[in-house]
């Protein structure tokens, strides 16, 4: 990840000035803290609780439908399989959300390996691919210009990710 080095070095102080108050920007301002910290923030604890409650709630509803189906309600068979499926969706969606959040935060503070960029949500991968492109000395003759380009790319990514794309947080 040598390509990303100029990005980090280009504007280490300006990045914090531009932070717009989200927890993601706070993580970028304090790169010494472990990335997983966001998982125990009050808001995320609320989400964890919601997910646990809804997971067991949906399994309970599936169990209830199973008992109804066994006591002769043929229609309940469909819902007997549907509720556990929804519970499974909840687990998969939740796991992927947390994985994406880790990648977003790591992308801001650490950068990632190139094979990681393939499977990222496209916004992040695109920004990183472009950053790597413009930071390569072979593409631009002037290293100062390429560093500036990388800096612009990073600003762009921040504006795009926090201002408009992330929405309510």
């Amino acid at each position, binding site marked *: 990840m040598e390509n990303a080095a100029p990005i980090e070095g280009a504007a280490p102080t300006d990045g914090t000035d531009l932070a717009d108050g989200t927890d993601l920007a706070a993580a970028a301002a304090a790169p010494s803290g472990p990335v997983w910290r966001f998982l125990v923030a009050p808001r995320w604890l609320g*989400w964890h609780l919601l997910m646990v409650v809804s997971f067991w709630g949906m399994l309970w509803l599936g169990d209830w439908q199973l008992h109804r189906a066994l006591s002769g309600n043929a*229609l309940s068979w*469909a*819902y007997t399989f*549907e509720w556990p*499926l*929804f519970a499974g*969706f909840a687990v998969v*969606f939740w796991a*992927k*959300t947390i994985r*994406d959040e880790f990648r*977003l935060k790591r992308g801001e503070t650490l950068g990632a390996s190139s094979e990681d960029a393939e499977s990222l*949500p*496209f*916004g*992040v991968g*695109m*920004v990183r*691919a*472009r950053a790597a*492109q*413009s930071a390569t000395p072979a*593409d*631009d003759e002037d290293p100062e*210009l390429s560093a*500036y*380009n990388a800096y*612009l*790319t990073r*600003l*762009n990514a921040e504006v*795009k*990710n926090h201002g*408009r*794309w*992330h*929405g*309510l*947080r």
Partner: protein
Amino acid sequence: MAGGTDCDKRSFDDQEMKVVETAVLRYRVMAYITGVVLVFLCFVGIPLQIAGHPAIANNVGVVHGILYIIYLVFAWILSRKLQLANKPTVIMLLAGTVPIMTFIVERWITRRFISPALAGQAKAAEPVSRSAR
């Protein structure tokens, strides 16, 4: 050299744009179908069920269940493509279970997230390519 990279970037963006547009289209189609079926279930099926004819409510209920599973998958994929936060994602996923709500949420998601994302994507490449020229 700069011209070459510009071309690469543009085609890359176009490709990603198509991915988002496909996800948006799938979500919209499923939001509409699921919404219509749910409205039919609640405002035709349920009154008939109360009046003593449960067949429509039973069958349409199962159909809505299956459609909602597909809706969930497409709405989730769109949420990942747009990198939505948890709250709008959960609202979008649950909208398929509340009558009329799919239509309201679809319009809200379009105005608040889809349009800015598609507009912002075109602009995203500008500062870099402009200074590289």
